[in-house]
């Protein structure tokens, strides 16, 4: 037993040296997550702002003036022009200079006074339907609020049902609050899975694995020894991303920090297991790399709920997303960081993640042992 432990420790030390010696890679490994958080924390937003809009108003009057003021006051809108006809807007749309146009009827103020119907056309650049539907909602909300006020102003003080909204967990609607937890998952997934897959495949490709196999260690111990240093690296990356998120974006950790780190550690092992499974399927580093990056990058971005809400997906994909570990990890991290949720709320997700990890590890180690024997 003692000799085994010594051998295992030797392996961990050897692999750590290998990681630490290559300074260039190490710098990339530690700096990269930081740069990513800073960059994407600022740059990725799913809300739409700076919408270049033109308002078509054939007969400007007091009522349309107040509508214009509402659009101009909104920080989502960038009102370019008020024009009398919709004659030239088509060109603006085709060249991309315009994204939305609000086409008003004539004599708005007079119609309001007489209680006549007012019909407004919202023209939206629909080439990005996601942004398009958001822009439509924004414009409609502004129009309705304006209309309810303008019509009652004309005729009395009633305002109907007043809606008081509270944005829970993310009162300022910061995109960073949504994406930083996602970035942790993305960085950890790719870095640990990729590093592990490459490290193991490299040994088999170079033929050095055979030397390890003649040692008294069992294959599972060899794998463990090889992946432990990467587990440490993965966890270090979590620290870096979390610190940057807290320092720069003031992303809160409302729940227990200890629980958060424990869950991160669990997830690091999930991704290491993915890496091991990849390494059993790949004979060369090239295949391993294509599998890890080519096969994991987009699915992790798209099927985890990182950017696109899982609730919006068609049913087969929603079902499929259940086997994407990042999906569960994201719910956990967002829950702890933004909602202050504890294990009482997140035990199901944790259990699923634990199950996936165990299954992946079992498959990976089994397949690797078969191959190495």
């Amino acid at each position, binding site marked *: 037993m003692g000799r085994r432990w010594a051998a295992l420790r030797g392996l961990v030390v050897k692999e750590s040296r290998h990681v630490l010696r290559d300074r260039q890679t190490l710098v990339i490994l530690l700096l990269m997550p930081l740069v990513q958080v800073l960059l994407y924390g*600022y740059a990725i937003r799913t809300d*739409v702002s700076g919408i270049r809009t033109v308002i078509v108003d054939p007969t400007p009057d007091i009522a349309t003036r107040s509508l214009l003021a509402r659009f101009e006051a909104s920080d989502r809108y960038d009102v370019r022009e008020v024009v009398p006809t919709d004659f030239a807007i088509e060109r603006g749309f085709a060249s991309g200079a315009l994204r939305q146009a609000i086409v008003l009827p004539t004599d708005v103020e007079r119609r309001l006074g007489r209680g006549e119907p007012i019909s407004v056309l919202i023209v939206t650049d*629909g080439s990005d339907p996601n942004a398009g539907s958001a822009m*439509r909602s924004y414009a409609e909300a502004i129009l309705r609020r304006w209309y309810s006020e303008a019509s009652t102003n004309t005729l009395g003080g009633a305002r109907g049902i007043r809606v008081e909204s509270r944005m829970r967990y993310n009162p300022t609607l910061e995109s960073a609050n949504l994406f930083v937890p996602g970035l942790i998952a993305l960085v950890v997934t790719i870095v640990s899975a990729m590093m592990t897959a490459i490290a193991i495949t490299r040994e088999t490709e170079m033929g050095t694995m055979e030397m390890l196999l003649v040692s008294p260690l069992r294959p599972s111990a060899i794998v463990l020894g090889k992946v432990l240093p990467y587990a440490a690296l993965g966890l270090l990356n979590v620290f870096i991303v979390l610190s940057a998120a807290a320092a720069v974006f003031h992303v809160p950790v409302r729940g227990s920090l200890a629980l958060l780190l424990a869950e991160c550690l669990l997830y690091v092992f999930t991704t290491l297991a993915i890496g091991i499974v990849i390494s059993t399927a790949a004979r060369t580093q090239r*295949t391993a790399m294509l599998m890890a990056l080519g*096969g994991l990058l987009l699915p992790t971005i798209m099927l985890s709920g990182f950017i696109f809400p899982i609730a919006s997906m068609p049913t087969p994909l929603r079902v499929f997303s259940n086997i994407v570990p990042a999906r569960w990890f994201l719910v956990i991290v967002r829950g702890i960081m933004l909602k202050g949720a504890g294990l009482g709320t997140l035990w199901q997700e944790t259990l699923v993640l634990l199950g996936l990890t165990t299954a992946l590890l079992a498959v990976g180690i089994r397949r690797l042992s078969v191959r190495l024997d």
Partner: protein
Amino acid sequence: MRIIRLLVWKEFLQVFRDPATAFQILVIPIFQLLILSNAATFDVPRAAMLVVDEDHSSVSAQLIQRLDGSERFRVVDVRPNETGVEAALLDRDARVILRIPHDFERDLVRTGSAPVLLSLDAEDGASAGILQAAATAIMVDVSRDLAAAHPGSSREMQGTVRAGPPLDVRSSNWFNPSANYKHFMVPGLLVSLTTIIGLLVTSQNIVREKELGTLEQLNVSPISRGQFLVGKLLPFWLLAMTTFTIGMTVGVFVFGIPTVGSVPLVFLSAGVYLIVALGIGLLISTIARTQQQVMFVAFFLLLLYLLLSGIFTPLESAPRWAQWIAQASPVKHFVFIMRTVLVRGGGLADIGPTLLGLAVAGVGVMLLAVRQHSRRAD
């Protein structure tokens, strides 16, 4: 020419002799395209709403009915008090909680105005904003209708009635009238997948030969650096173009993406674009020492290119400096060309400058790679 043909022949032999690699290059991207294209929607299909109805009036009942019948909300539960409501929001059983307070109907009838409280799970701020706007719009309509249905109520309430028929808002989407997000996502995803595969395969290629020692044998042969790099670029360019062509076919016939503009122009642009993307891969490969390094650089670049391409999130919302960085992403420019030509029907006049920019970048990257690839260590 003969030397380049030989080098291409050799790369093809190596790729197709390794079934895993050929599969990764030609099949997996198409597979991903078929699956992932369905995932990329922000549409919030009827958010789960939990109502706390403390009023229990006919007005509150009507309000609930209207919300449940709308296209944005489905009412999952109506409760008399707030017990357990918080947990429902935390557990994601509900995204929106509407609290209708005591005396809601009375206040509305007497004073013409009454509050409701809307709590939204704003974890995803963007969709919370959309839901809030939708709820507000429904409330405005409901109060108007309610007033119309209660002609005997207060003067204030009747004031609302006299405000006349509801505002008639019609919407029209240009370029993509059915608002089919797949028409928008499929070209973007196809570009992403072709780029990921092409960049990975080329960036890994030369380094692999360095590690195996075969590069040395090529270096002592009399072929020139230009021949060498073209011989490395061309095979993968052909493979990537094949992937792109299969992807376009799938896009048009499976997803029905529009081809309003000229398809040959799209392919011409794809050819130019792939020189840039694969050239960047080769450049990485000439600089890196190990395949491990290549992986990280490629990962970092790909993530940068993809997340700042405007494929997944609108670039207009990003801060100005981030938009400047995004200019350096060739993916962004090619996605722009694809969408302009395919969806908007733009022609050479619309994409000319962008295409020229890509061509210049392609030549520049290849020249840099040739310069960087010194066969001789100094």
